[in-house]
């Protein structure tokens, strides 16, 4: 049979690049870049090029699995679905619907996320539904909604190429969002100034004009120092502030706490460089800010994002084509999972569950009563396992690796009375399940993903799922119906039409409009062309709001017992919990083993050579990993990627939460490092 070439969307990061999957005899055999794709335009990163590799891996789940003691037994779907429904219903009857928790998935489609939250909300009358956005951009949603009225990236990826200054803070886009890094280089090649802020040296900082190597957790001092200087020099945009902003006086007053001198001391850099970057950012016509986990994964994550919004609005660098604020979303559909209301406080389209008018709207549409009490977050659902939460349904999430303080998470996963995990592999989390549903990967289903620039894109089915595995859409419909709901959807397109009817920002989205290039929300009606950049003449909330960003240092700083800063993150060849990338032969060949970066001076003190084993210990636990000696980390700092199940960086991380967004502080904790004896 002749091969077919089918266009679809990459399953890895939030950039949403276009792939062409080559299918031979029903098997995905190769991935090529899509020259016509509006974002990636014929380029891919190493992960994108390898996207087909894990699809046919022998570890794929092919049948529902039922726990029997320490092992699993294959069972047919017509036993698995009724059993799941029965157990969930029994639990809800005995302990109340709020004893059920659901973790939806940023890897799944919009339609699947919509059905998931609808199932949890309708069947159990609870809002205990959340997903891993809690661990990445929860502060973005909270802060940007407060300051601008919308939690999404303000502009489009291709707009970056026209910026005159790009300020990158806490983002290693070159490894985590490589195709977006390409847009930054396009701007640089046209003469834009690239400024990078990162305690580590990364591919971004090496290619930036200016690198501010600040102390970990000192983003607010830096941003406040810059703002103080901008106001003192009269470089703020007074017309913009007068016409479009509120709260300037309070901010200005607050910023007197942050003269450049104090900021420089906190950050560990010199004053002149702060003044210099502040002037560059403020003076050019259009400046963009890119940020990522280096900003959000702190106990002060929300305040960090607020400080970024303040800086951008202070200079009027919002609401034009090439300025804006770019939170880079991590998962292929984390934007969509949030948009679809897989969050404990909002329905699809960020409509509050506690607003009675909204509640009525959804009750009428769905034909049942709904709870108006905001639900629990990811970390709370896991943390309360066996206590307030008796049963959980986890769709394609892997908290056993992704959540902080793994030892505690593993204890919790054991504590559920009943745990259902739906995934494509028997993940570290699925190993704790009572019942496992085998589901479909990106290449085996249709639906939509929404990328980091709010673009709904069509995912096309290229091959069938393996064995008896089913599309998540079908599993959700079966379970919904078994729970007594009317989930008789014929296809994902029908679900999208229902979403469009309930969430005004997506009112104009329908599958047949998405075929060629997708559509960027807000897209309120079928005639609307989509929105390239937000807040043009007015902010989504009306006026923009300056909010004072209070600085709180990291909750755990190095001390005598734990003298190192430990930071976690991603590297270019692997992705998140490694479920897919570590089963891709090409990616796994590039990086086979866990490692942590350590500065040469520290390595010398510890008598550790490159590639030797080190033991990293924090107050939560310890891991043994390979030392990678490099000046990319400063003396006194350790960096550990979190992709590796055999040396889980999250054994070490601090579960301290940002009080407003409840994101854990993945980016800073205190650690001790020892050389691990080779014979031990």
């Amino acid at each position: 049979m002749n091969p077919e070439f089918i266009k679809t969307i990459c399953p890895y990061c939030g950039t949403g690049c276009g792939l062409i999957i080559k299918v031979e005899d029903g098997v995905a055999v190769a991935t090529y870049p899509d020259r016509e794709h509006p974002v990636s335009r014929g380029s891919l990163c190493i992960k994108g090029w390898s996207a087909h590799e894990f699809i046919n891996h022998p570890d794929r789940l092919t049948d529902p699995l039922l726990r029997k003691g320490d092992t699993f037994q294959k069972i047919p779907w017509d036993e698995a679905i009724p059993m799941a429904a029965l157990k969930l219903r029994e639990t809800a009857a005995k302990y109340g619907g709020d004893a059920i928790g659901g973790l939806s998935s940023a890897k799944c489609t919009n339609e699947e996320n919509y059905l998931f939250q609808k199932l949890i909300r309708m069947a159990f009358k609870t809002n205990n539904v959340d997903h891993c956005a809690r661990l990445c951009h929860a502060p973005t949603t909270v802060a940007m909604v407060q300051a601008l009225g919308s939690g999404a990236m303000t502009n489009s990826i291709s707009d970056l190429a026209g910026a005159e200054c790009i300020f990158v803070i806490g983002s290693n886009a070159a490894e985590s969002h490589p195709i977006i890094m390409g847009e930054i280089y396009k701007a640089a090649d046209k003469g834009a100034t690239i400024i990078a802020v990162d305690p580590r040296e990364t591919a971004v900082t090496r290619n930036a004009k200016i690198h501010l190597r600040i102390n970990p957790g000192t983003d607010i001092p830096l941003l406040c120092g810059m703002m103080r200087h901008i106001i003192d020099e009269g470089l703020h945009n007074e017309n913009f502030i007068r016409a479009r902003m509120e709260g300037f006086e309070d901010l200005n007053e607050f910023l007197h706490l942050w003269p450049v001198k104090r900021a420089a001391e906190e950050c560990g850099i010199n004053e002149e460089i702060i003044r210099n970057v502040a002037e560059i950012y403020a003076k050019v016509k259009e400046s963009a800010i890119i940020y990522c986990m280096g900003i959000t994964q702190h106990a002060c994550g929300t305040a960090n994002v607020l400080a970024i919004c303040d800086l951008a609005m202070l200079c009027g660098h919002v609401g034009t084509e090439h300025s804006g604020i770019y939170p880079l979303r991590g998962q292929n559909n984390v934007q969509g999972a949030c948009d679809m209301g897989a969050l404990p406080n909002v329905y699809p389209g960020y409509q509050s569950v506690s607003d009675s008018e909204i509640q009525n709207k959804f009750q009428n549409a769905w034909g049942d009563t709904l709870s108006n009490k905001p639900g629990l977050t990811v970390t709370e659902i896991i943390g309360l396992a066996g206590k307030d939460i008796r049963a959980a349904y986890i769709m394609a999430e892997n908290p056993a690796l992704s959540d902080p303080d793994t030892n505690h998470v593993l204890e919790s996963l054991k504590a559920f009375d009943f745990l259902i995990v739906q995934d494509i592999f028997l993940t570290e989390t699925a190993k704790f399940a009572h019942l496992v549903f085998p589901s479909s990967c990106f290449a085996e289903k249709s639906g939509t993903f929404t990328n980091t620039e709010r673009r709904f894109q069509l995912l096309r089915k290229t091959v069938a799922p393996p064995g008896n595995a089913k599309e998540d859409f079908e599993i959700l419909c079966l379970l919904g119906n078994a729970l007594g709901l009317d989930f008789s959807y014929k296809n994902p397109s029908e679900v999208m039409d229902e979403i469009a009817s309930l969430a005004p920002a997506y009112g104009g989205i329908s599958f047949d409009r998405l075929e060629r290039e997708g559509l960027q929300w807000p897209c309120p009606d079928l005639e609307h062309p989509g929105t390239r950049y937000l807040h043009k003449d007015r902010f989504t909330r009306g006026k923009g709001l300056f909010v004072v960003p209070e600085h709180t240092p990291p909750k755990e700083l190095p001390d005598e017992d734990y003298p190192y800063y430990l930071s976690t993150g991603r590297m270019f060849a692997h992705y998140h919990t490694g479920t897919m990338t570590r089963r891709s032969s090409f990616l796994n060949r590039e990086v086979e083993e866990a490692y942590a970066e350590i500065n040469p001076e520290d390595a010398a003190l510890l008598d550790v050579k490159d590639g030797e084993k080190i033991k990293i210990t924090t107050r939560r636990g310890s891991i043994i990993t390979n030392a990678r000696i490099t000046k990319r980390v400063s003396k006194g700092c350790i960096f550990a990627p979190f992709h590796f199940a055999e040396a889980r960086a999250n054994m070490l991380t601090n579960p301290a939460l940002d009080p407003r967004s409840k994101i854990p502080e993945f980016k800073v904790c205190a650690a001790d490092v020892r050389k691990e004896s080779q014979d031990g």
Partner: protein
Amino acid sequence: MLEKTKNIARQILEEKKASAVFGLMRNEWNIIQPHLFEDPAGLANLVLEPKWLLAKLAMRILRSSPENYKLAVICRGCDERALIELIKRNQIEKENLLTIGIACSQEQAAICLCDRPYPEKLDAGEKVSGVDPFQDERVRKFLIGNDKERMKRWADMLKRCIKCYGCRNSCPICICEPCKLEDDVWVQRGVVPAETITFHLIRAFHLSDTCVACGACQEACPVNIPLLYLQLGMRKTLREKYGYEAGLDPETKSPVLSSAFEKPDTDREFPDWINSLREEDES
């Protein structure tokens, strides 16, 4: 040009000269992608734009097909040259390949800095004259100055590399197995950027006498490294000093191969750009 191409393709399918015609298809949604046309009626959806290199895809199709499977490929000049190089390297059986050669527009030639924007076997479209890439400012920028300056310019570009392997994956001639870039004797695994000398220069020199200047590497590069410019000097030297150009006909062997058997001509001068990629002194 499009109608003529469709007619030729239709004839090939109707006369069963090939099992399929490989080209670009535009569907009802205006989506364009590579496609195997097996049914003459499907040719209504055939398009020729945008420039989309098909040689490597065509090779993969032929290599996974039954022995006597014949494929007709709609190709531009660069695609034709790449296919000829693949024949020379025993990747494609000459008898199993038909080409339908189409000419590029002047505009396309300018975008690609192409000095030969047409196939030798031209079936549809009018030849336009090529562009001399060495007259282009963007290329000259990488060739002027002393070797230190040139090295600096390249180092600044190559340190952007994110090691996607897109240059290798998309290059129609990059077919070695195992690939030297995957051999950790040469290239350190797991770090970005890929090393300039062992990654980029191994790749560039591996292709010194086979590069057909299609620009696929550069087009696939996510970080805008002008990889094509790395090859242009070597192509120029082969043409000017050895009278050789990759991909023009299947019979002429590369001087890199022939010099292994023939007495080298010691009087040749080295072109001045040849050390532009020398590593900077430690000082």
